Structures are given as structure tokens and as C-alpha cells.
């Protein structure tokens, strides 16, 4: 079980958090202009990487804030956490 460093609260048990899938997927500004394929790309397609992955997490039983995490899925090492809207500190 992870120990997650919430950018607002500090280190907390994983059981206080909820995972929210892949990060940095921006909702299209004008969905109506998109083709079915383009919309499906936004709606359904998610990466499932072995290695460095960018993820959304929510401190659901804490400050309820969403934030981003960089995690190596091969060994579960959390490389970084950062606030929504911030650029990932790692490529």
C-alpha cells in the first residue's frame, strides 16, 4: 500500500485516496466539431504503461483535491506529485 504525498496535506495512507486514471487528457474545447473517431479517442482511449505513467489521484477522504502523480508501474515507485494545471516535473 502506497504512502502518498498529497500536495496539500502531506504524506497519507493510500486508503485515503482514489485513483482517477490517466492524467493530462484535456476535454476538447469544441466537442461538436470532432468526428466520431476523434471523440472516441478522447472518450475511450487510455494508456496502460509498464513504466513511467502519469496519473490523476483524488484525496477523497482528506482535502478532496485532485492532483497528478508520476508513478513507475513496474515497481510502484512514486516519482513525483504535483498540482492540477502544473507541468509534470519529470518527462
Amino acid at each position, binding site marked *: 500500500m502506497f504512502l502518498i504525498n498529497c500536495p496539500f496535506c502531506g504524506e497519507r495512507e493510500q486508503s485515503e485516496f482514489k485513483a482517477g486514471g490517466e492524467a493530462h487528457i*484535456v*476535454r476538447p474545447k469544441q466537442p461538436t466539431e470532432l468526428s466520431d473517431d476523434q471523440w472516441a479517442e478522447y472518450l475511450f482511449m487510455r494508456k496502460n504503461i509498464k513504466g513511467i505513467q502519469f496519473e490523476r489521484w483524488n484525496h477523497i477522504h482528506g482535502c478532496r483535491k485532485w492532483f497528478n502523480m508520476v508513478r513507475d508501474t513496474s515497481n510502484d515507485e512514486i516519482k513525483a506529485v504535483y498540482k492540477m494545471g502544473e507541468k509534470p516535473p519529470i518527462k
Partner: protein
Amino acid sequence: MTKNLRVKSSKLVDETYRISFKFNGTTYYGFKGDTLASALLANNIHLVGRSFKYHRPRGIMTAGSEEPNAIVQLHNGTSRTEPNVRATEIEIYEGLVASSQNCWPSVKFDIGGINNFLSPLLPAGFYYKTFMWPASFWEKYEYFIRKSAGLGKSPDVPDPDIYEHKYIHCDVLVIGAGISGIMAAKTAAKNGFKTLLVEEKSYLGGSTIYQDSEFFKINNQNSASWLEKEINEVKKIENLEIKTRTSVAAFHGYNFLLARENLTDHLPLEQRENKTRQKLLKIRAKKVITATGSIERPLIFDNNDRPGILLSSAIKKYADLFGVACGEKNVLFTNNDSAYETAISLIQKGIKVQAIIDNREEIDSKLIKETEKNNIKIYKGYTIVDTFGYKRINSVSIMKLSKDGQKVIGSKENISCDSLGISGGWTPAVHLFTQSGGKLKFRDDDQVFIPNTYPSNQISIGSCNGDFTLDEILINTPKLLKEFLNITKTEYENIEIFSAFNKSKRNIWLLPSNKIVGKTKSFVDFQNDATAKDIKLALREGFRSIEHVKRYTTTGMGTDQGKLGNMHALGIISETASSKLGELGTTTFRPPYTPLTFGTIVGRNVGKYFDITRKTPIHEWHVENKAEFENVGQWKRAWYYPKNGENMHQAVQRESKAARDSAGILDASTLGKIDIQGTDASEFLNRVYTNAWSKLEIGKCRYGLMLNEDGMVYDDGVTTRLDENHYIMTTTTGGAATVLGKLEDYLQTEWPELDVYLTSVTDHYATISVCGPNSKKIIQKVIPEIDLSDKDFPHMSFRNSIIGKVKCRVMRISFTGEQSYEINIQANYAKSVWENCMEAGKEFNITPYGTETMHLLRAEKGFIIAGQDTDATMTPIDLQMDWIVSKKKFDFIGKRSLYRSDTIREDRKQLVGLITDNPEEILEEGAQIVADMNKTPIEMLGHVTSSYFSPNLKKSIALGVVKGGKNMMGQKLIIPMEKKQINVTVTDPVFLDKENKRLNA
């Protein structure tokens, strides 16, 4: 038969404290400190069970948690009976009653024993090959397999014991209190680390604590005496907590570990009342030091499983620690020096050692010399080729090994015995290390896997790290500790060590025999009855991956997870397939390391504490008025209020009729309520609901549908504009938390520029809904100052008001189709307002109704319930609710998905009404809907989602989803049931008052 095999001078048992216990119906005696296994052995009982597949007689094999055979059922009354208890771990207590588990009808005569003679017919994969085919027969096979496999009996009444969970945070966790664990705990604690030391046994010191001879010395004292002094010091250190009888079950990432602390299982039954039985410790440690020791390997030869065959180290332990001789004529069989340690212990205690059979040809150590001095015959370069004795070993056959160890030569010789100790060297207990994600490396010298790379802040020390001998431990452990704890010095520098142990070992995974492998029963996994022959068969059949061989042969799949034989399985595979052992990898060790009781896992979360129960502020009134309750999520909701012995149907019919004929009252407090404020609140609602919100006047209410981004309906409710920038949104009872979560998600991540604040106020306000033609009169009596005229307070509007001195909000909204008012009031006043309504409504026969009537009334009107009439595949168009989807709005969540190629299909399942030909016939919710019974396969068009008998329409009504249903109005369809077919007609989903006249009646 009940000979006493107790010898003097044991470390652990108190011979002044006698305890009686029962095993398989007979009463025996042991002493305080005995395990069930040591007490049975003292009574000369080896036969304790039958093997899983062949039902061969099996005896106690080990003295620890790695035990594969001695698994018993404990009977502490019907509610405390416990299966799968290892006799080697349970400490005896006054009143203990145990019985053999894996045998039927009795351990001495076991019907399944015939499998032993049928064994040529029961090869590896037998179950897969036979019982899986034909599939329809499985049910019949299963009964017999389960009965004869007899995996113990679980109690069939609730567990009366108390279990707890506890969180522990520490700087250093040390697992295992053997010599290296003690050194580590002392060093860590003395250097200021808050330290926790856990040990699965009842005592500290591991195997060194009974390594009491002149052949193992530290600073000129016997190693046992030296360690005892260390332990006494360790017990006095303040920032060191020690927990015995505590076994670590799981080692997860980020140094999170689960351990089970056993608090009462060793106590007499009457001393256990009102005490916590077991605790699940949830440990988060900054640093973990694993010192879990090692497990002695058996040797693999023909008939190596008879009662009386034990690990050589177990024989030593029973003698040293418990003062018990495992036999009067002991033979030891070894490939390394460990058996000589056992021999010396037995000699010291006056227990006879008949002979030692050693695989090695050329051997020399002080231990061996000492053994020879005692006139014990040593057969060097020999192996055992067979053993004899059905329920207890009585002799062994030995033969000389060839130079290369591949075959046996010369003639057979027989040695009689009543106990055989086997030693194949040692396997580091790396289970927890690998659970944590650690990677192993193979050490060719002595053929062991040892820790290589650590995934978290942890180390392994002592024999679980491959340091098996006293000198290795005392030299390497301080070095490792200094680096790990970042300290410059330990107390263990310049220590004088003397160890008579010589490390030489002759490793032969499968010992040769004068028979061909196919004719031998050389057990690798004792619990699951997997033999060397089975593994070879699996390889012949083409299995290569160790994970596949494991599953096919069931090697390592018992409750002991193959702690004894897994290495041999790997060894045999590598030898047979000529692959390198280090490259084969190992199977995965999964938690728990030793089995956990369900009680420990659930802790206090049982019965009414299993989940949170939410009650409305009016709950007590419902209880007083004999409501039946329904669970809706965590909420208890009044379901119906039976009167004078009514059943549910009768009560619901009465309530439904009263609500339409005069007045009904509903506790709607469980509806989710979200307070929305901010200058962009209207814009926000525009984006999350399908309809338009900008033009909603202050004081007006509007119904809204919420979609997921994929266009599917997931919640609905009425939202009211309280002020320019202030709304109150209601959600379904079950959807409240997810709706709030989803709205927060969009606000925080997609639209952070919006000035909107969301607050859950579900628990702050109670909601009382009064409906029916007389509702207006009742509300007027309860709130005299409010103007309820249709002109001033029309349907879908809201007014602030006051009841007594308490402010309230009144909404005129309706989920029943009747004229209807909802009073929202601060929760702690709700019950008295409810009582006011009941009092005011008396003259109108105001009738409290529950969720069932609410569902019926809304179904008459064709109103959906999100989650009942919808699943995650219904769009608003599918629900025939096109009217609520704004065509003008540029965007809202889910909009784009409403015209994907899939969502515009004409033949999607659509919501329709269903009327049965026979008006008395009520459909079953969930029943399938078809058009043509003769088509094969029959095409399922949809299913019934809601179904009731309407007392107001005096007929059965139902809602359902049907493929292309929108265009099927008036068409006949069939609901096929088990014994009949029900004919229905497709209709509009609105059954009652299509013109909405009743809203203003």
C-alpha cells in the same frame, strides 16, 4: 502404545504444570509450554493425518509453521471450532480437543487409502484430465472429492471472539527474534530508532537459544548462554517493543506490513472470555529488517513420507526445547553437517542414535568426530532407497551412491529404526522479502536463492540472507546493520567465535534409487501429494514454466505454500530439462505467509458494524409506527407501514390509493442535496445538465438529467434557484456521493476558471414530502403564513418560509404526479414538523408511505428511477426523454456522445410501457422480453425494469426496455417464464394523467 518419551532438561516446558488434552477421542497429558505436536510425540504418537490425494498415513514432520502434514481440527465448542490448525504451532491448554482432519472415517482406517493402491491411475494433472470432462459431471465428482479430501470443517454459527485492528508506526521493524533479529533490534533501539520486534513463536532466540554445546561458542560461552544474556538486555530497552506469537502475514510496498498477534489461543478456555483473541497489526515502518531464518530441506527418496520421518532439525528441537524424543531408535539421513548437531543433542539427552547415513563420501568436521566418538555408525557416501512401515516407519534400505551421485551401486542393507531425521541443507525463508517485490539471486555454491535487490528501505540478515553458520552471522550482521542504519559502530565488533560446523554439502535434488522413477513415490510436496514422478511427467507432457508445472502438479499449492519442497521441484525441473536453476526463477510467494483467520481480517467490522448505517432525523417515528425498512446504499429507508397484519402488497395498495385519493406523506430526507454557490453557478449547471439553466427565474425549480461523457444517464433530480448565484441541487439517494465527486472533478480539473463552490448538505436538511389532492390544505395548516395559491405558488416553484421560529424552504415539486409540497427544514426540527403534518392531516386521513409506494406512484406516471430503469447503457433519447435535451446549448457533459454512430442506432433498447393481457398478472422485474418464441436461438429484445399492480388504474403496469421499442407501440410481445408465457402489449410509459391535470387539482 502410550509410552512416555519425555527426557529431562528441556528449555521450554514446565514439568510441574501438567495439562490434559484430547486427540482423536483419547485423553493424553502434556506440560505447559508444549505444542500439540510435542505433546503427541511425547506420547509416542506420530500418525496424525492422511495425505490429500493418496490418503497415505502421515506424521508430524516439522516443528514450525512450515508443517505440511500435522493439520488438525480444534474443537472448542461449535462456535469456536477451527480447521487447518498446525499441531506444530498450537500451544496446548487445559481442555484442548483436537482431531485429525484429512481422513474419513478415521485416521487409522481411511477409505481414501485405496487411492494409494490406485496411484498409478492418479498421475499429475489427474483432476484436470478426469474430473473436468464432461463438464456437466463436475457437480457429481465434486461431492466425492470434497468429502474425501476433507479440508476440515468451518463453524456454522457466528464467531463469538473479539478481534481488533491496530495501526503501528515505527522507525525500524525487525521480523524474527533469532540471533540476528535480536542483534538487529538491540542495535537499532540503542541507536535511537523506535523499534518493533515481532516473533511468531512464544519465545525469543530462534534455534540458537537451544544451540547449547561446546561446539558453538561466542566469547567463550556456549552460543545459547550468550544469546540469553543478549535477550535479557534487549527486554530492558525502552524504545523497543517486543511482540511474540506475532506472525507477519504480508509485506506490501512502501514498507506496509500486516501481522497477526495471537493473544489468547494458548490460554485455558475459561481465561479467554472477554479478551481480544487476535489482532491484525497494520505496520508502517520506515525501515524493515527481515530476519526470518531458514527452513530445513527434506531429502527426496522413495517413500520419504512415512509417519516417524521428520526433519532432522525438528528432532533436535523436540529434544532440546521440549525434552521429547521422537523415537527410541533414531536414524539420521543427511547431505550436510546439520544432522550431526542433532546427533550430538540426542546423545547429550541419552536418546539413542542408531546410525547416520550421509550422502557425502569425504567428510571431516569436529561435529562428525564427536559423533564417531560416541560409537555411532556413519554410512558415508550412502543414500536411502526405500523405507518400510505403514503407520510408522520401522526400517530403511540403504545403498551406496555412485561417484557422480546419479545412481546407486552395490547391495542393499537394512537398518531398523522408529524415527528418521532427514536433512537436505537449508532454504532461506525469503517469502516476505519476495512479497515486498524483492528480487532473488541464485547462489551456486550451496544451491540457494538469496535476496538480491530491495524495492524499499529494508534488508535481510541472518540465515534468510544465506548466512547459515554462527560465524557468518556474527561477522556479516554487524556490517549490514551499520550500513543500513547509518551508524559507525555496533556492540558486536571483535567478537570471538567458535563454530564446529563445516559447510560442505552434497546437493542431489532427487536421490537415485534401484527402481525406475515411475515405480517410486518420492514426495516433493507432502501436503498436496506431488511426487518427483509427477514433476517429470509434467515436463514430458511439455510444461516448461515453473508456474505451469506448479499448477499442473499442484506442487506448492497447499496451505503451507510448499515451504519444504518448492526448491526440490525447481531442482528436479532444472536437472530434467537441463536448464540452469538460477534462470528458471521461482514461483511467486503470495500473502499470507501463514494462514489468517477471517476474524482477524474483518476485526471489529462485523454485524451492525460491518458498514455505516445512516438514519434520517425522522427515523425514530418510522420505528415507532412499525415501518418495515429497506436498505438504500447505507441508508435505512421506511419501505412500507403495514397495518393490522397487512403484507407488503396490501400495505402498498392502501398507501398508494390514499396518496392519490386524499394525502400521503413521505420522508425524502435521504435524497442527496448539494448547495451550489458562485457567480458562475448557472453556467456550471448548463454544462452538467442536459437542459438549459441560464433563464431559470429565482424561486423556480427545474428537473435535470445528468449524463456521463459517454452520453449515458447516470443521475437525475430537481434543482432550485434560491438566488442569483445560489442553487440547491437534489440527487438520487444512492448517487449523492458520486455526483458530488464528479462535479468536483470537473470543477477542479476541467473548468478551474469557474467561480463555483459545492457543499454537501444532505445531512443538514430533512425533506418531508406531502402529496395528494388535500396536500395544500395540510401544508396551509402547518405553515399558516405562506400563500399557497396556484397563482402565487405554482408547480415547480419555491418559497422561503418559517414554521414557528424555524426557517424552512418549501418546494412545490412532484415525483408522484399529484399536487405535492416538499418542506426542507434543518434536520433537528424535522421530527416535530413531521408530527405537525401528521396532526394537521388527520382529518384528511394523511397516510405515511414508504419507498415501495413511492416507486409505484412514479411508475404510474412513467417517471424513471435512475439505476432501476436505467443502467449505464441508456441515453435520454432511449428513455424517450428527448424533450430534456437542449438543442441550443453549445456543449454539456455527454452531448457529443448523443450522436455517435452507436447512440443513434434505431434498434437500441428503449424505455416503453408494458400492459399485460391479463390485468391481474404482475410481471417479474428482470424478466426477459421476446417477440418470437420459434426463432432459434430466441432473440432477447429486452427486459422488464419496473413492475407493479396499480390500485389507481386497477391493473398491472410495467416499464421495460425493448430493442426499437419506440416504434412498437401497440405491438404484442411475450414474457417467457419458467412455466408459462405472459402476453403483453407495448404502450407509452405514462399510464396515468398524461395531461398532468392532477398537479393542480
